[in-house]
């Protein structure tokens, strides 16, 4: 089932916002192919008509009283951030080449 190429690994890393070195790309291509080969054993089971399980005890519409309560202190939370300004998280630019 898995014909994993180095290019695919590079693409998946991009999707995951994860820079990989050339050495990591080489190593992971082989290792991930091996793990996926093992994982592909799940295809041996006939699951026709079997519903998927996303959660062992499905609970829906879990409600609590709608009562205001204090949230985390903003200054304390922002103190954990790599960069903050004017009560907000500060990040490098998000859009390319715009003023």
């Amino acid at each position, binding site marked *: *089932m898995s014909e*994993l190429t180095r290019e*695919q*690994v590079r693409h*998946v*890393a991009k*999707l*995951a*916002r*994860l*820079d*990989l*070195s050339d050495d*990591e790309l080489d*190593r*992971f291509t082989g*290792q*991930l192919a*091996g*793990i*996926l080969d*093992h*994982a*592909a*054993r*799940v*295809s*041996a*089971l006939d*699951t026709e008509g*079997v*519903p*998927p*399980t*996303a*959660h*062992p*005890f499905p*609970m829906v519409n*879990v409600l*609590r009283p709608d009562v205001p309560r204090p949230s*985390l*202190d903003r200054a*304390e*939370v922002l103190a*954990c*951030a*790599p*960069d903050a300004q004017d009560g907000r*998280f500060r*990040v*490098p*630019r*998000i*859009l*390319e080449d715009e003023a």
Partner: protein
Amino acid sequence: MSGSPTASERDTDLTSRSAAGLAAAVRSGEVSAREVVDAHLARIEALDGSVHAFLHVTADVARARADALDAQRRSDGPESLPPLAGVPVAVKDVLCTRGVPTTCGSRILEGWRPPYDATVVSRLEASGAIALGKANMDEFAMGSSTENSAFGPTRNPWDLGRVPGGSSGGSAAAVAAGFAPLALGTDTGGSIRQPAALCGVVGVKPTYGRVSRYGVVAFASSLDQVGPFARTVEDAALLLEAVWGHDPADSTSIPTPCEPILPGLQRGVAGLRVGVVRELTEVDGIQPEVSAALEQAVKLLEQAGATVDTVSVPSAVYGLPAYYLIAPAEASSNLARFDGIRYGLRIVPGDPGSANAAAMNGATRHAGFGAEVKRRIMLGTYALSAGYYDAYYGQAQRVRTLIIRDFDRAYKHFDVLLSPTTPTTAFALGDKVEDPLAMYLSDVCTIPTNLAGAAAMSIPAGLDGSGLPIGVQVLAPGLGEAVMFRVARALELGFGFGAMAARGGPA
């Protein structure tokens, strides 16, 4: 030499006692909470340089808490003390502790001090237990040896050349080495039971949803569960009962009341039906001494009046492959939050003036995550990506349904199930670092329980020829903790390991 014991003899005595024994001694006034805490801190100071169970020791906070409890006893009397007053606990570093570093064994969270406590940490404090520090772990709980910690591995107290198991290896080693009689860990695919087996202690993975996950840094949200480590079955029950129960802050926590464990703990196993799971017992590469220990467990339960038979859970053999699709898929989503924006590490590549956020994300995650975390993020992203979703992730979720159905069928005929916890005893450091799949296989017996959302625990079942601990696993249906603990207690009496486990640890 006769007369009163020396200070170090006194410390050794205190650090080998059970949590129940220490709580009783503090309540009766035989020892102060401060003496108990000081004895354990002294042992950590003396021996953790070689074991490395802790990433961070909170000695000053622990002493202040002990002094406060001692003052409360003097002013309000022993009856005012909470149940675990003065009992030291090690806390896995995946649990948020307000103002105390919480790294998950990762560079990406180095130096982070959470602005809140996990619910289990608050409940621990309310029970009177005293956290001594944060226990080492595989990075983000991904691993089976604690070698994936960014801050260096933990070593097995029974043999410092061997791994303690993982991912909660620091918690297991801390209890085995006498650094604390209790510890909290998390179990996503075996991360409490496997290190408990390798370190010769009791480790419990409660029913999914029985213990709050609020403030537990998420790995695989449909599988993660917090649970206790201890040197006795009773102590494990004490800690579990201190932290479990519904939490409005975790919408997946089960609202039904918990059936208490301790009142029925000594009821014995007469009349109980025990099934030995064939698929988890006849696994490739199983060590003959592990099989022999399981046979011994069967004999002990039969002698105690249980009926034992073998049972088949056919789809359990697909647990490992299904897990290595589901867990990484959930992890790749959960770990997206480590993006260099709100907390933790930020690496801005190139000229800061021209860098953009996406480049910062990629560089931060490259520098902050270790190899195993990167592998799992990649696996999960791939398994969820277009064109592969149904064949990998979708199929794994359907296999999960089959595993649940097979366990349900088995529990129609049996009250609890039995298997080895791990195919082998502790392996040498470095043995499996370069072979991820071989590492994964050490969780083959524990993973199906997580997929089913059920309960299971590992208890010590003697030593192999090299003097290394063997674990036996008792499995129970969801919310079946009380009967599971009864069986574990019967095995504890049969194997007679209570005193032996306490001697584990460097001489």
